[in-house]
Every structure is written in structure tokens, then in C-alpha cells.
């Protein structure tokens, strides 16, 4: 018989650890042709950080995204940005790039103000053009940079971001361990086959507060990927260790979800602006996976009326629990 259930899982997750120093540095160089180069040690491992850093620089500099080149993770030229871990790069390196871009921008704005005889606070840079409040001035960023070059002024900036390092109170364990937090709730719908013990995830709705979504398509991708890892964690993945040796070291024995194991996922992006983040952004990397297994296990408990405490919820475990419950029932 197939039994149907719904489950919910919620989480919060720290972004920007403050337990130890956690810095990132960036250089932003406005080039002669009005394009820009961002240098950051941030390693792109597929999460989309290079795109996000380019977007943050473009927004700050007032140039189009195509006019920003990002050089990352090259110890020969890029400043240290710390690891791509702990869901920190958008928040930490994003802030570093924003600060560096602001400095580069200041050079251009100051020169433009001088040439146009305007107050720098009224100057805006948009799409490679210099604006006076809401009006284009007819001057391009490229012109202004040429002027700077003629006078030997460099149009580059460096930025560093390091959330204030705090210490937890050793007596109470209280303090501020992270600069900010991400929040999420996921709901899973499952079918459980009571004869085979197979749990089929039918649907996942995943709502994540990520601060400002710098790149919504990337955020969705992170959420969907996190859900698939969460499904693996809930139903399939277990490192079997015997006498200190891993028994299932290959993908033939350690199973991860295939396309056929994936339900439709409905990512919901909740944009609660984080004042300390770059343009209000936080992080989403790890949070995407945190509540999935809990939501699925709760859905299985809802379907069967049995709570399983060991992951993964393999068919063998599910069947064993159903049998154990049946054996307790009076004949």
C-alpha cells in the first residue's frame, strides 16, 4: 500500500563566521577603455561567485556586466579572499569587491566633478556614462579615465572586509558567532510504499531568505542542488565504515540521486535585505541542503505514523520499522 505524507523542516544558518578572523580582499581596476577588472582570491567552484562578484562590481561602477572581467583564485595576482566554504563568499568577498569598486569609482567621480564643475555627490555613473543626478552629461566614464591617465591618476581601488571578530563568553557560551544568519523552510511531499519500503519524494517547496538575491537564477540553482543533496542524505547516502575502512568507496555502492530520484522543486526566494551585506545579500550555499532531510523524515513520519531516527531512510530500514510496529499490534 502507498501512504502519503507531508513534512516540514526549518533552519537558520550562520553566514560570516566571527569566531576567528575571516577576511577577504579585492582589487578593482578601471581600465582605459572604460571596462573594469576585478581581482579576487575567491575560488569559483560552480556556485556562481564569479558572476556575483562581477555583478556587484558592475552595479557599483556604473558599467554593464559585460564590461567587467573577473580574475579569481590566482595566487600570482589575486589578493587572499579566504576559502569558498561556510556559505561566505557572496557576503564576505562581495563586500570586499563592493568596497574596492567604490574606491575606484571615487577617482572617476572626483575627476568628473572637477571637469564638469559639479558637486561629486550629484554625480552618478550608469551604463558607462556620467550623469548629473537624473540627466546624462554627455561625458563617458572612458573620457574621464583618459583625463585621469593624462594627469597620472590611477583609477583603481582596493577593499577588504572582515566581520568584527568576537569571542563567545566562555562561561555562558553566549555571544555573536556570526555576522548574520540565513533562514529557510522546506516542505516535502512523499509516497511511502509499505511493502517495499521505498520512499518517493513527490515535491519539495523550498523557501530561503538569502537577503538580496544578487543573481536569482544562481540562487535557484543552489537551492535545487541543495535539495538533491538533501534527498541523497535523507534516502540514499551512507558511508559504511568497517575496521576503519570505507566499504562503499565508489558510486556503484555509495548512491547519490540521479535525475529519476528528483521531484519537482519549487524554490521560493525570500529577499529580506541584510544591511551588512553587499547590496543586502547573505548566502545560500549550505542552507539549501540543511532542512531537506528533516522535511522528508517528517513527511515519512506523517505517512506511516512511525518516526525513524536513523538516516538514510533506506527501504530496508523503513520495512523493518513497519514490521516492528506490526509485531506490537495485538493479533
Amino acid at each position, binding site marked *: 500500500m502507498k501512504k502519503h505524507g507531508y513534512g516540514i523542516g526549518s533552519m537558520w544558518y550562520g553566514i560570516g563566521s566571527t569566531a576567528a578572523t575571516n577576511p577577504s580582499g579585492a582589487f578593482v581596476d578601471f581600465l582605459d577603455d572604460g571596462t573594469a577588472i576585478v581581482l579576487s582570491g575567491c575560488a569559483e567552484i*560552480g556556485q556562481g561567485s564569479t558572476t556575483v562578484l562581477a555583478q556587484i562590481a558592475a552595479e557599483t561602477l556604473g558599467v554593464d556586466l559585460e564590461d567587467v572581467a573577473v580574475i579569481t583564485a590566482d595566487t600570482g595576482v589575486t589578493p587572499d579572499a579566504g576559502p569558498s566554504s561556510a556559505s561566505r563568499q557572496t557576503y564576505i568577498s562581495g563586500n570586499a569587491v563592493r568596497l574596492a569598486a567604490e574606491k575606484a569609482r571615487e577617482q572617476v567621480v572626483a575627476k568628473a566633478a572637477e571637469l564638469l564643475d559639479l558637486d561629486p555627490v550629484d554625480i552618478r555613473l550608469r551604463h558607462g556614462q556620467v550623469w548629473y543626478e537624473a540627466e546624462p552629461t554627455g561625458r563617458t566614464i572612458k573620457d574621464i579615465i583618459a583625463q585621469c591617465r593624462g594627469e597620472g591618476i590611477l583609477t583603481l581601488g582596493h577593499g577588504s572586509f572582515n566581520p568584527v571578530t568576537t569571542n563567545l563568553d566562555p562561561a555562558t557560551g553566549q555571544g555573536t558567532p556570526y555576522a548574520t544568519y540565513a533562514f529557510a523552510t522546506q516542505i516535502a511531499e512523499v509516497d511511502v510504499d509499505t511493502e517495499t519500503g521505498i520512499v518517493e519524494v513527490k515535491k519539495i517547496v523550498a523557501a530561503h531568505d538569502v537577503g538580496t538575491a544578487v543573481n536569482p537564477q544562481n540562487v535557484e540553482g543552489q537551492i*535545487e*542542488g541543495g535539495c538533491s543533496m538533501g534527498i541523497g542524505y535523507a534516502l540514499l547516502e551512507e558511508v559504511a565504515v568497517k575496521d576503519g575502512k570505507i566499504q562503499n568507496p*565508489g*558510486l556503484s555502492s555509495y548512491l*547519490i540521486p540521479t*535525475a*529519476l530520484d*528528483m521531484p519537482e*522543486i519549487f524554490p521560493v526566494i525570500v529577499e529580506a535585505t541584510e544591511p551588512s551585506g553587499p547590496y543586502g545579500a547573505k548566502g545560500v550555499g549550505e542552507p539549501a541542503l540543511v532542512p531537506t532531510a528533516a522535511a522528508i523524515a517528517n513527511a515519512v513520519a506523517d505517512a506511516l505514523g512511525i518516526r525513524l531516527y536513523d538516516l538514510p531512510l533506506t527501504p530496508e530500514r523503513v520495512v523493518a520499522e513497519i514490521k516492528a510496529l506490526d509485531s506490537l499490534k495485538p493479533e
Partner: protein
Amino acid sequence: MDLFQLEMKVNGEAVSVPVNPGLRLLDVLRDVLHLSGTKEGCGEGECGACSVIIDGELVDSCLVLAPQAHNREIITIEGISADGELDTLQSAFLEAGAVQCGYCTPGMILAAKVLLSKNPKPGRQDIARGIAGNLCRCTGYAKIIKAVELAAAGLQQKEGEAGV
């Protein structure tokens, strides 16, 4: 060991190379022909990162010995775009945001290519089945499936315009 004179067609071009017959097709492609778009993930036929198309079928090149590719026609990821123009599937993957780390991508695109050659109007389930032998750890497959849907629609439209 005697070398084996391997003759095959790779991405439309005739290739003839002396190889150690114990090499896998994957090694020939990557190390002899320097076509490094084909990836090695597991080396045991489980992940599909090494997928290539042999005579129209999707095959894990880590499970093929070089002599087995003799006189066959191989297509790798390098062979699906012509004259610097991306293949419809490649553009669709970009548009849908279906590439994260990219390690599975060459195999995924070739799997989708074979699928669409056999079933030009696949449903969601057909697509999932078509790429089920190709593991992706990053995307959760959602945007990959979306990309294949986009490509299928794009190909239909192209055919319509060509009056086929």
C-alpha cells in the same frame, strides 16, 4: 607490447593513431588526441562524465577499450558545435543556468543530444530517464531538464522554419 593502429572517425575527421591496446577510449581521446572536454569521474561506468556518442549511441568511454572503437564514428563535446556557433543544446544550457561546476556538462549535453535524436519531443520523465546515467552533484537536475526542454522546443522551431 604491440601497438594497435586505431582507425576511427572523431568529430567527422578520420584519425589513425598507434595506441597501446589496453588504453581506454577515454584515455585516447584525452591523452592522445587532447580532446579534454570528455571527463573522467568514476572510471567504472557509474557517473557518465566520460560519455561520448559512438555510432549514434551514448557510451561511457571509460568502459570502452581502444580497439573496440576501431572503425567507429565518435562524437565528443568538441564536435557538436560548428564554425564557432554553439549547438542548440549548448545555448539552452547557458540560458537555463544548467551549468554549475561543469564537470557533468559535456556528458549531459551528449546524453541530451542522443535523447533528442531519438525522441524530439520528450516529456519531463523521458528527459529524466535520458540523463539518468549521468550524475550531477551540483544542480539537482532541475535546470538541466529545463535546458533540454528549451533545446527541444528550439529544434522544433528551427525545423518548422526550415519547412521540414
